């Protein structure tokens, strides 16, 4: 199978090698087209975002104003902070020029003259690699004002790398924009959407690194070619980052719709010691986990995974064998979202900490089966009620881990525990305790 994002070409990260393999021909072609033509091709290709939500990229671009009255911006999202996700890093390292070429085409399509690539600060080495690649392309006249001559067009754009300072939430597109603006990484309330009101109030498009890296090949080979790869409604290839209990963890580029079991057993070399799989999280830590005994036939594309009760997310596949303590896993995941909640909105700010506390209590042997119900209820009270999707990301693992592995979680809890609690009631109005059941000490009776 031909690889789109990470082809097996030695030294492709070198600009000359990239050019020798047809690099920047797509940019040349696209820059001679009308922006709307480029958008049309991407639309027809059915390319969907690789940043988690799987939104149609061409459609997203078409939301940008056709007539430019304010500056337009393109933000390329390389924050890659979701646990289990480590694919964009490969692009920075192995194929940076295709990303840059994709940026040129996308920027032209949405008429953005300024592009920010937002990369998590921990990726310091990869930031250096990408910066070197950018510098080289500036020198060759692929970026900046010189583009006009090189590509014989009126359009040019500048590209800047913006380093994140260590917050997962800054990968959320509106928090990312606030972060670039120098503000606190708080997601914005939508509407307004970025295409109307993004960076500094101007029309902005945000796309994932992998999404953009697909674009040059779509322009070069045509949308029909792209649309024919993999699952029809979610075509192309995906970078699957496989981690956990597999013999060969790593990033595998495979067509969408590849069987999950195929990825685990054929590509990632199966489970060490031939153990059974207990649980798989198919798309990064925030996606609903799947039971190991129900993996048969599950295909890795957006629609198939939704049917299977999960989501494609960022394609980070985490495999857990039969000896895994799922409570420990859930505590770790919940700790992450508690730690990373930006604290802006009530359900996520308060709920993530509460869930972690309950889980840690269960871990310490002080949990009951009621606590499992409580966890599911708290998660449901967060889900869908928050400013950004981090709320859902924190809620789903808890909700689905417990409901799908209830049998296992029941083993971690007791029938009854005695926990001294003070001040349990803060208003008498709707209390579920009847007043008779509240025993007051003799002396306070009137």
């Amino acid at each position, binding site marked *: 199978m031909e690889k789109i994002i990470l082809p097996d070409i030695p030294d492709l990260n070198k600009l000359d090698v990239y050019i020798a393999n047809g690099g920047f021909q797509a940019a040349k072609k696209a820059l001679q087209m009308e922006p709307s033509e480029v958008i049309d091709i991407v639309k027809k290709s059915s390319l969907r975002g690789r940043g988690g939500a799987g939104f149609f990229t061409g459609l997203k671009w078409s939301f940008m104003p056709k007539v430019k009255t304010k500056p337009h911006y393109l933000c390329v999202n390389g924050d890659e902070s979701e646990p289990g996700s480590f694919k964009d890093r490969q692009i920075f390292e192995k194929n940076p020029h295709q990303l840059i070429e994709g940026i040129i085409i996308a920027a032209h399509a949405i008429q953005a003259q300024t592009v920010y690539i937002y990369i998590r600060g921990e990726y310091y080495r990869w930031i250096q690699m990408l910066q070197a690649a950018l510098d080289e392309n500036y020198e060759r006249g692929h970026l900046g004002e010189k583009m006009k001559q090189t590509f014989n067009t009126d359009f040019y754009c500048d590209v800047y790398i913006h380093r994140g300072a260590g*917050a997962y*939430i800054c990968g959320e597109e509106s928090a990312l924009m606030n972060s670039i603006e120098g503000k*606190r990484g708080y997601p914005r*309330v939508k*509407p307004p959407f970025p295409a109307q009101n993004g960076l500094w109030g101007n029309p902005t498009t945000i796309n994932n690194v992998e999404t953009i890296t697909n674009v040059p090949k779509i322009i070069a080979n045509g949308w029909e070619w792209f649309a024919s790869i993999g699952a029809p409604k979610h075509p192309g290839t995906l970078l699957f980052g496989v981690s956990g209990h597999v013999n060969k963890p790593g990033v595998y580029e495979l067509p969408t719709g590849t069987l999950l079991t195929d990825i685990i057993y054929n590509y990632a070399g199966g489970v060490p010691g031939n153990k059974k799989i207990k649980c798989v999280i198919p798309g990064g830590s925030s996606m609903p986990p799947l039971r190991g005994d129900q993996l048969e036939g599950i295909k890795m594309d957006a629609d198939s995974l939704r049917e299977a009760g999960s989501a494609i997310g960022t394609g980070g596949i985490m495999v857990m064998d039969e000896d895994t303590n799922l409570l420990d896993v859930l505590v770790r995941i919940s700790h992450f979202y*508690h*730690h*990373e*909640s*930006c*604290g*802006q*909105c*009530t*359900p996520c*700010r*308060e*709920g*993530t*900490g*509460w869930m972690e*506390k*309950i889980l840690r*209590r269960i871990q310490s042997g002080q949990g009951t089966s009621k606590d499992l119900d*409580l966890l599911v209820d708290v998660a449901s*009270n967060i889900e*869908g*009620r*928050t*400013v950004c999707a981090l709320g859902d990301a924190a809620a789903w693992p808890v909700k689905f881990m417990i409901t799908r592995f209830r049998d296992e979680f029941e083993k971690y809890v007791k029938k009854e525990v005695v*926990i001294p*609690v003070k*001040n*349990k*009631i*803060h*208003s*008498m*109005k*709707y*209390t*579920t*305790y009847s007043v008779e059941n509240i025993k007051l000490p003799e002396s306070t009776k009137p």
Partner: protein
Amino acid sequence: MPKITIDGKELEFKEGQTVIEVASENGIYIPHFCWHPELSISGNCRMCLTEIEKIPKLAIACSTYATDGMVVKTQSESVVKAREAVMEFILINHPLDCPICDEAGECKLQDYAFRYSRGESRMLEEKQHKPKRVPLGPRVMYDAERCIMCSRCIRFADEVAKNPQLTFIQRGDRTFVSVFPDEEFDDPYSMNTVDICPVGALTSRDFRFKSRVWEMSNTPSVCIGCSRGCNVNVWVRDNVIQRLTPRENPDVNKYWMCDFGRTKTFKFVNAETRVDGPFIKENNELVKSNWEEALNLTAKRLKKFKPDETAFVASAFATVEDNHSFALLAKLLNAKYYSYFSYVIPGSGDDILITEDKAPNALGAELVKFKANGVSNDLDEIFEKIKLGEIKAVYILEQAHDFDSYMLDALAKAEFVAVHATNFNRLTEFADVVFPASSFAEKHGSFLNVDGILQRIKPAVATVELDRALDGLAQSRWDKFGTKFDRWAQGKKYDAEPSWKIISALAAKLGKPFNFSTSEEVLIDLTSKNSAFRNLDYNEIGGTGIKIIERKFSEEEKI
């Protein structure tokens, strides 16, 4: 006009209005913490979740724009459940220290816990602990455990005060509000954050632990700190003013007031320097007298001077009514000199509320001053003539700020000086008679603000002449239910009267009574004499004032 249906009621709305705005305009209350009509939308508290047809998830009413045909439910089962959940989330880490919290009694969180919460906490774990008693600035104290992170205070500083001194720091349930390193929250409007904070996270350092909210009576009035005339509530316990808070008036101060007005404009009412009963000068000392004696003495002395030997100095601190009766007195005595003293500090205003004119009623004093042929209204000329000994008797209405020393030097030359004063100050040292004037908090009256809006003040503090119950002052629980033996229900009452009343009594002593028995009658007297006041009475002025300077009259209405 487009229409939206909220809880089964079909309502018209204007393009660009949000669901919560349409609802609140139409008396449908959607509970909310972070939304405030004068601040940007932040959508963080999630309390205003509502069910909207065709939107799959619950939507927040504060950021959802009304569209034609939209159907909104604010009471459906899923909405009620969602609200209970939000309340539960807020309460799990809330310290619930209501018994010692200043906000108790006027706290959104308390009210909502009563109305929208399940009442039982399912959290068994230790609550999140955060900094308490943090002075954010000289006037505002912060308790991070009580804070619900609604960001109202931060948005107020950014958007209204235009002074971004506050920010959140930390993340998640460790978040709290803070100032930047080595800075403090000292904005001249900082204390408005105390009012808009929906909980007791921000408290006024001036008011902290002074009183429970329900122990105070609450009277609508107007701030006297400058000519803006911000609408306020005067909160009284033990017959002492405990605090002022801003009162909503879209045309004057919206929801705000400045920190100076809030903390520096009422303490004189109960200061030790307060004039308690009339004083007259004997052997160069002011000694306590009584009304009869002081009035007789003043009438007798005033009669002795010729009109061109008498000057009247009115006041931008006194009400329109006080100034009008003062002008009537000047007319009665045919005075040839009449002016008023105003107190302007150039450059001291801003483009938010604070004005350069530090008195509440300069425009009113100007509008009702005594004008006639041969009468000089020139204050400088008056003091020049006092200094030269040409003007021998001077009658001065309430002055809150000291006169310049050249004026005081001049007054030393006068043969007779009568002063109405709330407090002893340098001016009263030069007086032969000091009449105890009721303060703005002890009388009815009206002030004309910088924009020509006439606004009412009402008594909040009882005086000897003014009984809390009989004269219809606002009463707190303690005022109503306390007995004679309860110290708090009594409080100190000063023997003071409003200036218009003192002047009327003096006119009677001069043989020409004015026959005013209430402040409102003084105003009504003005309606036939000054076209700006046409057709006015206290009812017409109402709770939020009436613009009279630009008021247009039809032909027949004109006098």
